[in-house]
């Protein structure tokens, strides 16, 4: 299938009082039509910044996209004028944010906010747009839509607001939906509802989904391919089953082993990853995970490993083969 989005060498930095923060350091990936791509990493690993850079939602300054391109429909999103990118955002690529409490304007009715993209991108009148918004809200499972269109965000619960965010994101039937930890603020039963909803809509509308999360559990049942980010680098990329069964990077292995599993029998002590993620103030000259890594060898301290292919779809950025503990040939 064709590549819908092709991101190459994306690098984003932020100017702070302490110096430049190297948030994203040369991230490259492709997204195919209709595919669901999971992006996993801990806070500060650059997963949100990557996506916000692509949609040019990074506040500049202090942020700055240093390098890279993001080709969507033959055009580079990073080189577009503000006017051009505005026609992409919300229409062809849309985003659902983590916090449904703060992502709505509190003084505008829900109906108008959900309908707004249609007025802007498709030139519908307010009445037509509102009608369509009502249909969309039904589709995401909001009861009593006619009344609720005229209510304000505070009158909705967190789960309902997240549904509404999804309705707003999908109202122009985009080709790509970027979901940035959309269920982190929600309870587990509500999270299951939202995950099912996005899966259903994805299959019905045939769109591609990029699902950003720190929860390896959600990704397992959702994505076809997974990228693992650490310190602004992609450190592993693999199809979902391959990743969970044969993770190669010590960090991915560490993450998987640090999770307790609900379906396991008996007890085993969790394997924790020692230390903390690095502060990204310097240019990276060694493997950023080396200080926390139990497999590290001399080479790791001198050179940052680049992503390399170890089987057709499986790429990993590590000098060491965890099976042998020795350097890869």
């Amino acid at each position, binding site marked *: 299938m064709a590549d819908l989005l092709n991101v190459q060498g994306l690098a984003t930095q932020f100017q702070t009082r302490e110096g430049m923060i190297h948030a994203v350091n040369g991230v490259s990936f492709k997204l195919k039509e209709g595919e669901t791509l999971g992006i996993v990493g801990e806070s500060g690993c650059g997963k949100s910044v990557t996506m916000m850079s692509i949609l040019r939602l990074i506040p500049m300054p202090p942020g700055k996209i240093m390098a890279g391109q993001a080709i969507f429909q033959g055009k580079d999103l990073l080189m577009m004028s503000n006017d051009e990118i505005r026609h992409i955002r919300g229409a062809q690529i849309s985003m659902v944010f983590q916090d449904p409490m703060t992502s709505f304007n509190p003084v505008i009715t829900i109906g108008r906010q959900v309908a707004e993209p249609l007025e802007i991108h498709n030139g519908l009148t307010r009445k037509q747009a509102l009608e369509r918004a009502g249909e969309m809200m039904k589709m995401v499972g909001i009861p009593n839509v006619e009344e609720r269109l005229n209510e304000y965000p505070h009158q909705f619960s967190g789960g309902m607001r997240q549904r509404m965010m999804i309705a707003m994101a999908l109202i122009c039937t985009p080709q790509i939906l970027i979901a940035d930890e959309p269920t982190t603020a929600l309870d*587990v*039963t509500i999270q299951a*509802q939202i*995950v099912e909803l996005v899966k259903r809509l994805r299959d019905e509308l045939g769109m591609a989904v990029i699902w950003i999360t*720190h929860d390896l559990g959600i990704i397992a049942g959702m994505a076809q391919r997974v990228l693992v980010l650490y310190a602004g680098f992609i450190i592993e990329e693999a199809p979902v*089953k391959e990743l969970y069964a044969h993770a190669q990077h010590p960090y991915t292995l560490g993450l998987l082993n640090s999770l307790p599993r609900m*379906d396991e029998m008996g*007890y085993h002590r969790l394997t924790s990853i020692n230390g903390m993620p690095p502060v990204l103030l310097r240019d990276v000259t060694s493997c950023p995970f080396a200080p926390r890594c139990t497999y590290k060898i001399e080479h790791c301290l001198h050179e940052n490993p680049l992503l390399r292919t170890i089987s057709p779809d499986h790429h990993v950025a590590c000098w060491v083969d965890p099976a042998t503990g020795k350097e890869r040939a």
Partner: protein
Amino acid sequence: MSPQEALLKVDHLVKYFPITRGIVFQRQIGAVHAVDDVSFEVRKGETLGLVGESGCGKSTTGRTILQLYRPTSGHVYYEDHDLVKIKSEELRKMRRKMQMIFQDPYASLNPRMTVGEIVGEPLLVHHLASHKQADERVAELLKLVGLNPAYADRYPHEFSGGQRQRVGVARALSMQPDLIVCDEPISALDVSIQAQVVNLLEDLQKQFNLTYLFIAHDLSMVRHISSRVAVMYLGIIVELTGRNELYSNPLHPYTQSLLSAVPIPDPVAEEKRQRRILQGEIPSPINPPSGCRFRTRCPIAAEICSKVRPDFREVAPDHFVACHMVV
């Protein structure tokens, strides 16, 4: 000491928060039924997990047990003392034996105090040590929780979330308590750091024979750390039993749906899974449903469920459920 011996007994505990209207003359116009008649015991040396979704009253239960909130009615027995009846000075002494670790490691440490002062303060407050002794004890405690004792002069903002949570643990340990109420101690932390803190809690439990009441919403972590688990929904405990029993044989329909909603980090297992997705949302605790609290979302609710509140009864040895439909 038998493992069955109860350290803490909670007896028909109720906590309502009044809702008032008016500025000068406040009239009560309703109440949030945060905790509505829960009874359970915490046994010596065990970890009792208390799980539920936000707003189900699990944190309020924890705080009411420690008398940080005074209960509306009911009793909390610690060994043989009824904490509800105890006077403030005596209660202060009792508090040494019961400590708490809070959810938010950013908000629960005073930013103007050094870590050494934070960990040492309880010792001075309870006149258990001189300043010099306290300093020595602080160094010991920091070492115990995996922090460099030289950090005692630093302020909380110089630490990461995981390290701060270790400071919170050190503070709780300074009193050599028997019981620690852990109120979502890891939910603000990153995955790789969560495991560090959980392992620390487990090690300390073994070393000092601590008893934990572990409040959390992460069902996989609760399964990992607990010996028994209580599931809360809208102010009541719907099910309470041993860890393995609860996860392999959940009887209450809410527990069943809750377990089915938890994602498993394994794509192969996820594919095979039959999910039961709960419809709707948790009702308001201001005006909870009559009869069984769960009936509005329950897939098997019958007529009796709206009329009679189900008893919390022992349906199998050490397996308690509050549901009419469970025989």
